[in-house]
C-alpha cells in the first residue's frame, strides 16, 4: 500500500435494488489534505460517505480507509475515523462537559485524557462560562464548532464531515473553516461534503459527483482554468449543463 494515500477507492458501486446510487467511482485521498466531495443532493455523496465510514457495504469495488479494508475490517476503521453530520450535533439535553465526556468515553479515552482535552477544548472555543449549560441553549454555530472538536477528540487519522456548515451563518462558517485548517495543519485528513460552492475553493482538491459518477476531480484552481470559469459556482453550472 502506498503510504501517501489514506482513502483508496476503485470501482466502488452501490445498488439499492434496480437503482444505482454510486456507479463504479474511483478516487484517492492524500494524507493531510482537505478533500472536498461535492455534488447536488441525490448525486450519491451521502451513500459514498456512509460506505467509507463502515455504515453501509458497497455492492462491489475495492475500498480501503487508512489501509483497512471496508469489507473485513470495518470495526477497526471505526476506531480511526471521526464523523460529523449536519443533522446531528451532540445531545441537546446534556451540557457541554457531559457531551465531551460521553464522546471521549465512547472513543475509549481515559478519564485523565478526557479531562485534559475538555479543558483545552473549552478554553479554545471560549466556552468557559457556559460549560455547564445544556446544549439546547447554545446557538447552532457554537454547537457545530463544538461538534467538530468532539469529532476529532480522539485524534483520528481522517474525519468525515457531511455538510457540516448547513444552516450556519457566513461568519460562523468562516470560523468553522479556520478550525478545519487548523486540524488539517496537525495532520488530520479532512473529507468534507458541501453544497456551498464558495467552500469548495477552500479545499486542497475536490471531486464533483453527478448522478452517481465522478464528473470532475482536481485542484480548484486547475479545474477553473480547464473550463475557463472565474469561480466554482460557474464551474458547477457549466459542468451540470454539459451533461
Amino acid at each position, binding site marked *: 500500500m502506498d503510504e501517501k494515500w489514506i482513502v483508496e477507492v476503485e470501482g466502488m458501486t452501490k445498488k439499492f435494488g434496480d437503482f444505482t446510487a454510486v456507479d463504479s467511482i474511483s478516487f484517492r485521498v492524500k494524507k493531510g489534505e482537505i478533500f472536498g466531495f461535492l455534488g447536488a443532493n441525490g448525486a450519491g455523496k451521502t451513500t459514498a460517505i456512509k460506505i467509507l*465510514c*463502515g*455504515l*453501509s*457495504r458497497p455492492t462491489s469495488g475495492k475500498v480501503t480507509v487508512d489501509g483497512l479494508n471496508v469489507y473485513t475490517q470495518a*470495526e477497526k476503521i*471505526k*476506531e480511526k*475515523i471521526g*464523523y*460529523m*453530520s449536519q*443533522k*446531528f450535533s451532540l*445531545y441537546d*439535553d*446534556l451540557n457541554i462537559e*457531559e457531551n465531551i*465526556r*460521553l*464522546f*471521549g*468515553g*465512547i*472513543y*475509549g479515552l*481515559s*478519564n485523565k485524557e478526557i479531562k485534559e482535552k475538555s479543558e483545552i477544548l473549552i478554553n479554545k472555543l471560549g466556552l468557559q462560562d457556559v460549560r455547564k449549560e*445544556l446544549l439546547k441553549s447554545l446557538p447552532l454555530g457554537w454547537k457545530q464548532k463544538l461538534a467538530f472538536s468532539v469529532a476529532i477528540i480522539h485524534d483520528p487519522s481522517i474525519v468525515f464531515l457531511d455538510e457540516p456548515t448547513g444552516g450556519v451563518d457566513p461568519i460562523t462558517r468562516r470560523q468553522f473553516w479556520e478550525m478545519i485548517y487548523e486540524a488539517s495543519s496537525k495532520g488530520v485528513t479532512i473529507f468534507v461534503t458541501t453544497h456551498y460552492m464558495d467552500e469548495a475553493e477552500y479545499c486542497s482538491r475536490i471531486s464533483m459527483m453527478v448522478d452517481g459518477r465522478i464528473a470532475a476531480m482536481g485542484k480548484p484552481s486547475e479545474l477553473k482554468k480547464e473550463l475557463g470559469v472565474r469561480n466554482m459556482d460557474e464551474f458547477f453550472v457549466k459542468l451540470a449543463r454539459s451533461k
Partner: protein
Amino acid sequence: MERFLAFVKKEFIHIMRDKRSLIILFGIPIAQILIFGFAITNEIKDAKIGILDFSKDATTEKIVNKLLSSGYYQLYSYLKDDGQIEQVFREGKVKQVVVFQEKFEINLKQTGKASIQIISDASDPNTGNTLINYTSAIINDYNSEINRNNLSGLRIIPELRMRYNPELKGVYLFIPGLIVIILMLVSAMMTSISITKEKELGSMEILLVSPLKPIIVIIAKVIPYSLLSFVNAVSILLLGKFVFEVPVHGSYFLLLGEVILFITTALSFGIFISTKTSSQQVALMISLVGLMLPTILLSGFIFPVENMPIPLQVIANIMPARWFLIIIRDIMLKGSDITFIWKETLVLFGFTALFIGLSIKNFKVRLT
C-alpha cells in the same frame, strides 16, 4: 467497559432531565396504584336497596336485617306497591329491590315454601350480577340456619370456600395486573421510544460510526429502563404487601426471577418495535395500540380469557402479558413453585428469543 459505562450514564441523564419520561416512569405507576387500590373497585359496598314486603312478619324482618347487616347494602326505603319498583329504578335511587310475597312466614311454616323476588338493575351487568349473588348467598345462609334446627327434611347444603382470596378482595386482582402493565409500559414502550428518538435525531448514525458495537449501544440503552422497571415492580409488590395486604405465598426468589424474565421479554419487544420504525410517534402508537390496550383488555387482567370468543382467545394467547399474569398470580396467591408454571415460563422464553431473533434480522437487513 468504560465506553459502555459512559453510555449508560448518558442514558440516565436523558431520563432524569426529561420530565415526560419521569412522569411515565414514576408518576403513572403511583397514580395507577392509588386509583386501582383505593378508587376503582369491583367490590360492592353500601349498595342502595329497596324492600317491598307484602307480608311484614318476623321472618321477613329477620331476612331484611340479615341483608342490611352484611355491609353490602344500605336501605333506601320500604316500598309500598309494585308500581314504585319501576319508579325507583328509573330514578336511579336503588340498585336492587327485594320483594317478599304475602303471608311469607305462614307459607314457609305450612308448606315449607315461600318466595322472594330479587330484582336488580342490570344496566351495569357486573354489579347486577354480583348483587344477585350476594343476596342469594345471604338468603341461602338463612335457609340453612333454619334447617339446622329442623332435621326432618333431607337437604343438601353446599358449603362454599373461595380459595386463595377468601374475602374476594379486588386488590388481589389488581396488584399482579398492575405489575404486568407497568412493566410493559416502562420496558417496551419507553425502550422503543428512546431508541427511535436516537434514530430520529440522527445520533444513531453517529453511534454506529463510533467503535461502539451496535449490540452494546442497544444494551446500554435498555439497562436504565430495565433497572427502573425492576424498581417499579418491587415497589408495587411492597406497596401491595404493606398497604393493601396482598400476600406473596410463593418464593420471592422465583417471583423476582420471573419479573426479570418478563422485563427481558418486554425489552426485546420494545427493541423489535424500534427496528421496525424510525419515528417516535409511530413507536408510541404501536406501543399504545398494539401493546398497552391488548395487555389491559386481553391479558386476563380485567376480563377472564376463558370467557372470550375464540378469535380473541387466540389473540390473547399471543400476548406475553397473559402468560406472565398467570405466573405472577400463581406465585403470589397460590404459592405455586416452578413445577406448576414451567410451561408459562417457557412461553415467555420463547417470545423473548423470537423478538430478539427478529430484531437482529431487521437490523442486519438495514445495514446492507
